């Protein structure tokens, strides 16, 4: 009896878990999850350089060179399939799931110019990141402009 009870509880809880998963399904989930993870790769690597620039970590030429190289490699990745048309925050069911703005597609190819600005800044950063803390610091601004330039026009503000 006890066993039956615990089994039922287990099955019920599995149902609960899977129904949560079903509720969380939304259009273009794969692409949206992928591109957000892709952005997190930017933020992670930039965080390594940023911690040094901010004075929270000691400068380390190897880590700095590696992080800057990763950032540039990421920027050179072809991720065009992660941005299908109609996967913006105003699309049905996507409010709160994605922060991509309609303008990404409606003003295309403007977004690719922003991406190019970031790539240019990262080429510079990758070339000098191993040369010392000052080089990292003085290139953070341009990389930041690269990220902000796109987030300013093509991403809705964060929800609280």
């Amino acid at each position, binding site marked *: 009896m006890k066993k039956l009870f615990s089994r039922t509880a287990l099955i019920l809880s599995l149902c609960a878990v899977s129904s949560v998963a079903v509720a969380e399904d939304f259009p273009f989930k794969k692409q949206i999850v992928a591109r957000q993870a892709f*952005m997190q790769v930017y*933020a*992670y690597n*930039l*965080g390594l350089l*940023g911690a040094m*620039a*901010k004075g929270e970590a000691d400068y380390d030429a190897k880590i700095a060179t590696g992080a800057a190289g990763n950032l540039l490699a990421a920027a050179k990745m072809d991720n065009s399939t992660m941005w299908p048309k109609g996967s*913006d*925050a*105003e699309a049905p069911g*996507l*409010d*709160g799931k994605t*922060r991509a*703005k*309609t303008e990404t597609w409606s003003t295309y190819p403007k977004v690719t110019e922003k991406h190019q600005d970031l790539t240019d800044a990262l080429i510079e950063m990758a070339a000098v990141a191993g040369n010392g803390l000052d080089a990292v610091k003085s290139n*953070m*601004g341009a990389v*930041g402009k690269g*990220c*902000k330039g*796109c*987030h*300013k026009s093509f*991403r*809705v*503000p*964060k*929800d*609280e």
Partner: protein
Amino acid sequence: MLKKILFYCAAVALLILLVLHFISLPRTLDASLIPQHKADLQNGENLFWAGGCASCHAQKEARAKARLMLGGGVELETPFGVFIAPNISPDRQAGIGSWNTAEFINAMVNGVSPDSTHYFPAFPYPNYRSMPYTDLIDLKAFLDTLPPISSATADHRLHFPFNIRAAVGLWKLLYLNTGTFSARPGVEASVERGRYLVNGPGHCAACHTPRDLFGGEIKNRLLAGARSLDSASSTKAPKSNRIPNITPHAEDGIGKWSENDIAYALESGFDPDFDSFGGSMVEVQENMAHLPASDRLAIARYLKSIPALASTRD
């Protein structure tokens, strides 16, 4: 009998409106209140950046030197209609080059134009009005050094009844009540400097504090997050239409950010996770990056000192 009562009510209502109208008439500034003060251009420039004048009065997306060309033209899309920021360059015809100090102070403090009409609060004078006259004299002196631009800007395109300037007078009776900033005794000077910058020139509350039905800031929800009024940079999707809570609330606000995190974000545009600012905060941050580091730290210290509020949906 009913007719009589109705007539009586209408007469009283009319009388009240007339009285309100008269007490809300725009007034000129008494020039004798303006102190003798030798303008400090460096302080004027700092206040220009802290006040974010270029975000509205320079051209859209202007960079570097172009941020100092205040020919106006930026369109502010709001639920009330489209406001167009005017030319405030020192051009004598198209700009404000012919204004005297009293006229400038009256615009910034009372929201009243030299020809005695009310300005719409889309011009953040409800926040700027706490600036001491000496700071405003410095700011005007700095603006006077900028290049004159001779082009005129178009008129606002507002929906009725929001296009009635006289109605702004009534709005002011309800909401225009902050006085000139004065430091609280016994509170650390840098926190008070931050309080001044945030609530005065920086007008952080203009975006981060929710507003009531008539567009007045809800004072006991200071900086606790709001619906965005900027229709252009947000979307129709309600969850994507918010401006974040920046009180020290651990979950809903920025309680987990250190003072240094806040100061660094204002300097660089990167949050503690090295995501970057976006939307209208980018311009604000790039203006704040021009301030001395001590001012950004002061803002950070003040933000850590305000009441932590959980987010609600206004």
